[in-house]
C-alpha cells in the first residue's frame, strides 16, 4: 500500500475502500470468413467508497496515479455526507473484522492479438471446408483480464488478477422447409491466458465436428409437446437454474427487496437431494472455474452454503447485509469496472452432484425429454424462470429419440427443485457468461444433470 493511500485511509472513521483496477480485453470474431471484430482495449482507474451511518459515497476517476487518491476519497466522502444529511439512517459505523490480505502469485501475461486472429481464422476455415450444410458460421476468441488492487481503512490489502479466455463457435443451417436452425458452444478455456488452453486449432476439430453433428440432428428435429414433462436437464441448464432461478433470490439485497427467499431460512425449498453452494475458489476438490480470493470490501472469500439437503441455509451477503441478517460475510461483494461500486454477486454457483449415471437417468424415463443446451435464461425474484433450450432429444422408453428444435422451459424454481428425484454423478461448469445486475460480472455456474418435472414450451 502506498504512503498516500495509507495516509488517506487512516483518516476514515468508518469503513472506506480504495480500489485500483485495470481491465484489458482482446476480442476477435470471424463471421463466415471475414474478420469482423479485431479489438484490443484497456481501461484503468481508481475509485473510493466511504460508509457513513448507513449510506455510501462513491467516486471514481480514470487514472491510477496516487495524485488523485485524495481527490476521489474527498469526493466520495462529500457524497456520503450529503446523503447522510438528507436521508439519515443513523446506523453507526461499519467495520470489517478480519481484513483480507492476499497477493496473486502469477503476474499478468500479455496476449498476442495475432495469435487470436490466426486461431480464429484457422478454425473458421476448418468449418468452411468440413461442414458443408452450414449456412452461417462465426468463431469468436475472447481474452479478458481484470486486475484489482484493494485497500480498506481496516488494513485489507488484496491484489488479484481475473483472466478469462474462451472460444465461442456458432453454426447455422437451413431445414428442408427453409427455416434456420442455430447452435453455439464454448470450446475450452477458463480462468487463464490464451496459451494456457489453446495451441493448435486442430485440437478443437473434434469438438466442432460434434457441434456440427448436433446441428444436423437439430435440422431434422421436431418441436416438443408443450406442457409439464418429465425431463433430464443437463448440467448447463441445471447450472442456469442454480444461478438464475435460485441464486439471485438468495442474494441478500434482493431478499431485502422482497424476494421469494425472504423469511425462508430453515425451510424446505427443494428435494432432499439438492445441495447448492456459491463456491469461492475451490469446488469439489478442484479449483473453481473463476476463483475469487478476496472481495471488493476486503473480506477473505469462503464458500457460501445456500441449500443443504433441500433446506435453505443461507444468503449471499455484503458487509452491510451480513450485519443486518446476523450472518457471516463470505466475500460476495464484487464490482465490475473501476467506476462501479461493489454489489452482492455470485461467484461459482453450483448444485452438488448425486449418485446416478446420466445413462441410468435417461433409461429411467419412459416418455420425456433430455435437454442439453441453453442460449439464455431469465428469472424473477419470485423464483419464476424461463430458459431458452437450443438442443435436446426425445426420450422414449428409456432411449434417446429424435432431436428437438428450439424451445423453452419455465417454472418456479423452488417448486421445480422439489420434483428432482435423480442427480447425475458428474458436474459440468459454464464459465463464459456474464451475470447482469446493474453491472455485468463474469460468473461461473454448474451442476449435474437433474431428473425433474418442468414446463416445456413446445413451439
Amino acid at each position, binding site marked *: 500500500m502506498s504512503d498516500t493511500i495509507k495516509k488517506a485511509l487512516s483518516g476514515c472513521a468508518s469503513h472506506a475502500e480504495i480500489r485500483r483496477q485495470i481491465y484489458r480485453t482482446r476480442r476477435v470474431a470471424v463471421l463466415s470468413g471475414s474478420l469482423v471484430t479485431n479489438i484490443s482495449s484497456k481501461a484503468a482507474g481508481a475509485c473510493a467508497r466511504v460508509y457513513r451511518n448507513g449510506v455510501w459515497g462513491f*467516486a471514481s476517476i*480514470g487514472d491510477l496515479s496516487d495524485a488523485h487518491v485524495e481527490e476521489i476519497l474527498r469526493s466520495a466522502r462529500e457524497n456520503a455526507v450529503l446523503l447522510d444529511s438528507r436521508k439519515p439512517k443513523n446506523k453507526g459505523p461499519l467495520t470489517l473484522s478480519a481484513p483480507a490480505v492476499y497477493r496473486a502469485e502469477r503476474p499478468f501475461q500479455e496476449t498476442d492479438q495475432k495469435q487470436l486472429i490466426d486461431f480464429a481464422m484457422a478454425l473458421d476455415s476448418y468449418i468452411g471446408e468440413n461442414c458443408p450444410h452450414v449456412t452461417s458460421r462465426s468463431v469468436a476468441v475472447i481474452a479478458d483480464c481484470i486486475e484489482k488492487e484493494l485497500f480498506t481503512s481496516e488494513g485489507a490489502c488484496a491484489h488479484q488478477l481475473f483472466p478469462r479466455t474462451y472460444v465461442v463457435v456458432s453454426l447455422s443451417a437451413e431445414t428442408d422447409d427453409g427455416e434456420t436452425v442455430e447452435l453455439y458452444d464454448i470450446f475450452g478455456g477458463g480462468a487463464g491466458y490464451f496459451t494456457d488452453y489453446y495451441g493448435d486449432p486442430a485440437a478443437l476439430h473434434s469438438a466442432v465436428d460434434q457441434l456440427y453433428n448436433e446441428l444436423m440432428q437439430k435440422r431434422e428435429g421436431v418441436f416438443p409437446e408443450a406442457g409439464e414433462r418429465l425431463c433430464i436437464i443437463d448440467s448447463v441448464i441445471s447450472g442456469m437454474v442454480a444461478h438464475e432461478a435460485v441464486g439471485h433470490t438468495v442474494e441478500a439485497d434482493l431478499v431485502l*427487496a422482497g424476494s421469494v427467499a425472504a423469511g425462508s431460512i430453515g425451510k424446505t425449498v427443494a428435494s432432499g437431494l439438492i445441495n447448492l453452494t456459491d463456491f469461492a475458489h475451490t469446488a469439489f476438490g478442484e479449483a473453481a472455474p473463476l476463483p475469487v480470493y478476496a472481495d471488493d470490501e476486503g473480506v477473505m472469500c469462503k464458500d457460501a452454503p445456500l441449500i443443504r439437503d433441500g433446506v435453505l441455509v443461507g444468503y449471499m451477503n455484503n458487509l452491510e447485509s451480513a450485519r443486518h441478517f446476523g450472518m457471516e460475510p463470505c466475500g460476495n461483494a464484487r464490482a465490475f469496472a473501476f467506476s462501479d461500486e461493489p454489489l452482492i454477486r455470485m461467484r461459482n454457483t453450483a448444485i452438488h452432484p448425486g449418485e446416478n449415471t446420466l445413462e441410468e437417468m435417461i433409461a429411467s424415463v419412459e416418455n420425456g425429454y433430455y435437454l442439453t443446451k441453453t442460449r*439464455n435464461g431469465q428469472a424473477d425474484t419470485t423464483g419464476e424462470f*424461463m430458459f431458452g433450450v437450443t438442443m435436446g432429444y426425445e426420450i422414449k422408453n428409456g432411449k434417446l429419440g429424435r432431436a428437438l428444435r428450439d424451445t423453452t422451459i419455465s417454472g418456479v424454481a423452488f417448486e421445480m427443485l422439489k420434483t428432482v428425484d435423480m442427480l447425475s454423478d458428474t458436474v459440468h461448469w459454464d464459465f463464459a457468461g456474464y451475470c447482469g445486475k446493474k453491472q455485468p460480472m463474469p460468473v461461473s455456474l454448474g451442476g449435474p444433470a437433474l431428473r425433474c418435472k418442468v414446463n416445456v414450451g413446445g413451439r
Partner: protein
Amino acid sequence: MENLKKTALFALDKMKEAGADHAQASVSEGRVEEFNVDAGEFSLIRSVFSASVGMKAIKDQKKGTGAINSLDPEDVAAAAAECVQSAEHGAEDPAVCISKKEENADFTDGALTCDKEAFLDSVIRFTEDAARDFPQIMLEQVVASYSYGRHVLANTNGVLFTEEDGSYNVSIMYSAHDGDKTTSFNYFDVETLDPHADIMELGMTRTMLERAVKELEASPFTGKFVGVAVFAPSAVPDVIDVITGSFAGDVALIEGTTPWKNSLGQQVASDCFSLSVIPNDPRVICGEKVTSDGYKSRNFDMIENGVLKSFCLSEYGSNRTGLPRAVSSSGCVEIKAGDRPLEEMIAGIEKGILVCRFSGGEPASNGDFSGVAKNSFLIENGKIGAPLTETMISGNFAEMLRRVEGVSAETLQDGSGVLPYVAFGGVTVSGKNNE
C-alpha cells in the same frame, strides 16, 4: 472541447505515423452523478469522472480497433500503434471503411450543468410519493443519474464532429407485496432535462405502479388459446429489437438469415404499422447526433404503412450487401400512433393478453419465439381481466407483424422514443396443464 479535438487529431497522426492508410478517432470526456435507492432506502451517491479514446485503423484494407480511457499523449500514442498493429495482423476485407466527409458540425443539446441538490430533491419526493400512493410497492432499485459528456469524432477524410450534451435519467425496478402475495419485478426508464421534474408523472410511471398493485391478485393461467397479444409500450421494445436486429441488422443481412432479405420495398407488416427511427425528434432527449460510423445522424422511416423502406445497415453492412446504409444507428424509435384509444382497441378483442413485459429467449433468426408474459393481464370479452403468472406466449415475429390488428392512440413518451400499444394477432397463449 479543444483538448478533445487535439487528442483526436493526435491519435489520427499517430495512427498514420504507424502506417495506417485511414484512421478514425472518437474522444470523450464525461461525468455522472448518480443516486441509488435499494430495497426502498437511499443507499449511495456515486460520482464518476471518465474519459475515453476509441480508435479505428485501416491498413491494406485490414481493420483494427482499440480503446483506452486515458487522454495522456503517451497512452494515446501507444494505443494508436497497437491499433495499427492489430490491423496489420487482420484479414483483408474490401468492405471496411471510415466515414466520408459530408458536412462537419458542432452539436449542443440538453442540460449542460447538473443541479445535484434539486435532482436529489426530486428523487426523494418520488420515493415519498410512491410510499404514500402505493404502499404495496417495493422500490427494489432506483438509479437516478445525471450524465454529461463532450465528444469529438474525427477521421483522416477530414470528418470532424463535436458534441456536448447532458440529461437526467431515472431507472426504476419495482415489485408489489402484500402479506404473502408478491408480484414479478418490473422496470422502466424515464429521461428528462428538468432536475425538478415530478418523476411520478413522467412517462407511464404512475400507470406502471398502479398495474403492479393489481398484479398482486395474479394467478397461473390454465389452458391454451391462439388470440391477440396487445404489447404495452413497455414490452414493444422487445419487438423493435427483433425488427432492427434479427430482421434488418448487419449480421442478419450479411449472412442472409433474415426472412426480409428480399423484402425492401415490399409489404412486411399490416398497413396500420409504421416505424421510424427518430434521433432528431424533439420528443427524444439528447438523441444521436453522429452515427456509430461517423455520419450526421438523421431521422428515417423504416416501415411505412407496412412497407419496408429501409434496413438498419451500417456502412460496413451496406458495403457487404450492396444495400443502402441507414442514416441513423439510433435505437430511438417512433411507432406511429393509431386513431383508437386503448380501451376501444381492447373492446374489440374477444380473447387475448395484455403483455406488459416479455421475458423470453432470443428469438430464432426466422422470428420464432416463445417466452413468459410477465406483469401481464388476460383480455376477455373486450375487457382487461385477471392478472397472470406462469403464462407463456409463442409465435413468429415476422408473422405477427403481418397481423397487426390495431395500434393505440395513446403513446409512451419517455424521452427515448414514442411507443403506442400494438395488438398482434395469431399469438399462442399457454399456461399450466395446457395439453
